[in-house]
């Protein structure tokens, strides 16, 4: 009788603990992730996604790794007077309850030293590390441009 009660309490504690862990994992949400297919001999590719921080505190994306690439950096394309330059970002600030978009001609992950040619239809795994949240593993599809992803965020335009 006593041991059954102990088992129940232990089970309840485990359920509570795991749901707390889930709640903690859920502070960061990543969606609409994609990698643009590049020419087979490309030395660098770009990944884009939308990242939401549901925590009541600011966080930051501090690093990205993948078995498929030698090195990954967070970059921002700055366009000034029609001249583009890439600015490496040591980290990407994720304000509390805000959404940050990585999109063409703006923020992107620069995927360097691909281990093999990356083709449309491939799925790559990226590990994201954060200042506060636990590391997050995401699956990212490789797509060609112009399958709708590139302009999906823009307003419809007239022809």
């Amino acid at each position, binding site marked *: 009788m006593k041991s059954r009660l102990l088992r129940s309490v232990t089970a309840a504690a485990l359920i509570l603990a795991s749901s707390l862990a889930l709640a903690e994992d859920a502070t960061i949400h990543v969606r609409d992730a994609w990698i643009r297919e590049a020419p087979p001999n490309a030395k660098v590719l770009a990944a884009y996604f939308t990242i939401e921080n549901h925590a009541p505190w600011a966080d930051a994306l501090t690093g990205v790794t993948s078995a498929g690439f030698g090195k990954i950096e967070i970059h921002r394309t700055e366009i000034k007077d029609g001249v*583009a330059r890439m600015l490496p970002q040591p980290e990407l600030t994720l304000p509390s309850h805000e959404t940050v978009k990585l999109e063409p001609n703006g923020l992107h992950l620069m995927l360097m030293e691909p281990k093999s040619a990356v083709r449309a239809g491939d799925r790559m795994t990226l590990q994201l590390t954060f200042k506060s949240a636990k590391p997050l593993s995401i699956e990212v599809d490789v797509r060609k441009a112009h399958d709708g992803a590139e302009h999906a965020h823009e307003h419809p335009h007239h022809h």
Partner: protein
Amino acid sequence: MNLATTLAFVAIATVAIVYLASDRRDASSRSDAGAIAPAFQLVTGDHQPFTRANLEGRWTFLFFGYTHCPDVCPVTLAEMTRVYQLLRQHPDAPQSLQVVFVSVDPARDTPDLLREFVQYFDPAFVAVTGPLEQLGALTAPLGVRHRRLTEQGDDYPVEHGTDVLLLDPHGRLRKKFPLPHRAEEIVAGFIEIVRQPEKTT
């Protein structure tokens, strides 16, 4: 006038001269519509010479970048792929038309590597590069800026002008298409210029 005043005066005068000089350079690069590319000696991905003569007798879309560019350059190349597809079906589009991507990173972009990279987007696209001083002979008169940002290692970025330039069959600059590039807008802008009666300047 004491020494401090003199130094201050010299400093202000220097800043003013540098500012005016840079301002004038900017102004000349802005008012470059109608500019004709002068003599230059570049090379295509097929190891053929690419000179002023290659801009004669056909319309040219000319734009600049490098293959270690993951964001802006592939976006523009993909958009120009659509421009080229749309123009091939367009009843008013001239038959003689070339799309030329110029790498301003000759240290890393060999002609062979560049050809493979550019022709992934369309096999008809022309890949061009060459020594920096010859690239400058083409880019400076057209007001296109480019600069390697760091010298160390192989991981340097290159800043570069992002406009797509339209040159007429006389090699004259007719229009600059700035970011963001939209295929439909570039096609419409091109057709509008093609329909204009020939200017005799």
